[in-house]
């Protein structure tokens, strides 16, 4: 990397020359001090700190995803359960129609019977009502 410590182009102005001299002097003046013995241990501490923070975040994220999946499953089951006992729709349309027809027929028959009874014994119900009073 340090193949050239000199500026690539000559600069003729006194200002530029002074600046180049100064930069060269600065390079020498800024030679780094000895690296402290704690440099590597501190670096690894920082790496482990970041790793543990990342790991904690991943663990929280994974827990959240698991909880969301479990909740979705519960909601799916809850919404599915009522379909297991559809009492109203256990029969086919034809059967339901037949059953309704039977009910209507039976009702109309009972109505006819009451009508006939009323015709034969018109006072029976009135007497019973008067007796209660």
């Amino acid at each position, binding site marked *: *990397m340090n193949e050239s410590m000199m500026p690539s182009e000559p600069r003729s102005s006194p200002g*530029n020359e002074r*600046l180049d001299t100064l*930069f*060269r002097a*600065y390079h020498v*003046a*800024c030679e780094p001090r000895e*690296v402290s013995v704690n440099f590597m241990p501190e670096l690894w501490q920082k790496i482990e700190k970041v790793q543990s923070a990342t790991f904690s975040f991943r663990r929280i994220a994974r827990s959240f995803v698991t909880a969301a999946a479990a909740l979705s499953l519960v909601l799916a089951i809850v919404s599915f359960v009522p379909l297991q006992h559809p009492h109203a729709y256990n029969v086919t349309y034809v059967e339901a129609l037949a059953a309704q027809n039977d009910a209507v027929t039976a009702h109309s028959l009972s109505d006819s019977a009451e009508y006939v009874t009323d015709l034969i014994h018109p006072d029976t119900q009135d007497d019973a009502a008067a007796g209660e009073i």
Partner: protein
Amino acid sequence: MPAKIDGMLVDFELIKRAQQGDGAAFNEVVLAYRKRILGTIARLIARPDDVEDVGQEVFLRLYFSLDQLRSPEVFEPWLYRLTVNAAYDYLRKQRRRQESRMADLSEQQVMVADAMAGSKSDQESRRRQQVRETVDQLLGSVSEEDRILLTLKEVEGLSLKELEAIYHVNENALKVRLFRARQRVLKSCGETGK
């Protein structure tokens, strides 16, 4: 493929092992490059007390992004890129702007630079300190971008090709940026360059 490029401090195999999560290999890479990187950081940020912190930040970023390195051949420009970014971040945080006028610096600069060559050893550290302060003051008067570009080119001695690889900008654009950065530095110390 060669084991390593000339000037590289480690071979490709070591970088590949570090990429695969080998902690010992990563340790070796750090040990090989830390002095060079700390030297660059020292010149970029000019705060000796914070150099190691910024250096650790660089290697921390290296550790967690090493798997994104496409090929070991571009390892060094890439490491420099990480260094430059960490230095930018540090300088942005610091935002230390020296507002003092530097019209009278020129004479001082020449005196200090001339004195560097044949000074006595007991005066050496004091003069180095003076040089550091002078250049820090000069570079502190321009933007972080100018400061870092000039330091990499003029102080670190990186070639335009190497800067191209770091900045992903073509050579001509870099020349223009360097020229303008120099002009701003000269202007800030009262020099017109004429």
